[in-house]
């Protein structure tokens, strides 16, 4: 992790702890602002994830191994 990113993370940590209510309020303001939502169309049938042929979820830990490398 670069020095700059680390410093940003440290700044964020200093701001904590905030209450769940404050976090929820900030999240609603950030993602659910009616004006923002008006300008972005959600794709029909929105979905994300990986499954096998029969529709079973694939949630292998190998992805986390990659994440460990990135962290």
């Amino acid at each position, binding site marked *: 992790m670069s020095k700059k990113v680390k410093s940003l993370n440290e700044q964020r940590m200093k701001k904590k702890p905030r209450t769940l209510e404050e976090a929820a309020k900030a999240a609603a303001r950030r993602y*659910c602002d009616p004006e923002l939502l008006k300008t972005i169309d959600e*794709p029909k049938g929105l979905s994300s994830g990986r499954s096998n042929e029969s529709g079973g979820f694939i949630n292998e830990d190998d992805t986390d191994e990659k994440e460990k490398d990135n962290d």
Partner: protein
Amino acid sequence: MLATHIDAEKRYNELRKTALRVISGQIPSNNKLNFRLIDKPALLESQKWNLSQKRLVKWDWFNSYGAFKYRYPKRFELALWQEQELASLSLGRPTYNGRSLRLDFIESNPENTGIKVFPLVIAAMTTYAEALGANELRVMNPINDDVKQYYQKIGLIYVPKGDYLFTNL
């Protein structure tokens, strides 16, 4: 099931319920939304999605949820209802180091023509991530470019290695 596992499941279930109740209180009630945990009625309702010609995936929520639930007591989960209609299901878990909360699966009702579900889901996720002490959200494996670009418009950043998008809290 070990007692420690049962205890963890109970503890994090309370945390999930609290997070959903708190975010629900921040969303205007005119859309008649209901933020709930995934339960049998939600899983049964999701089976109706198989009948839709508009569905882009053939996921078996009914039979896949149990294994995920058992394996990840700290998971994030949400059944988003709009009145009597199931608007979306989503499921995720923290990364091993606990710094990130992943959204491993999200699917909106293929017949949904009304609300935009992702902003509501990520707002709920943010609240639960805060409760866990995570600093980052990750949305794994967008199914196509339209979906990926939509997430980017909302402010998430794509990481090709790993095929996920992230945002800091």
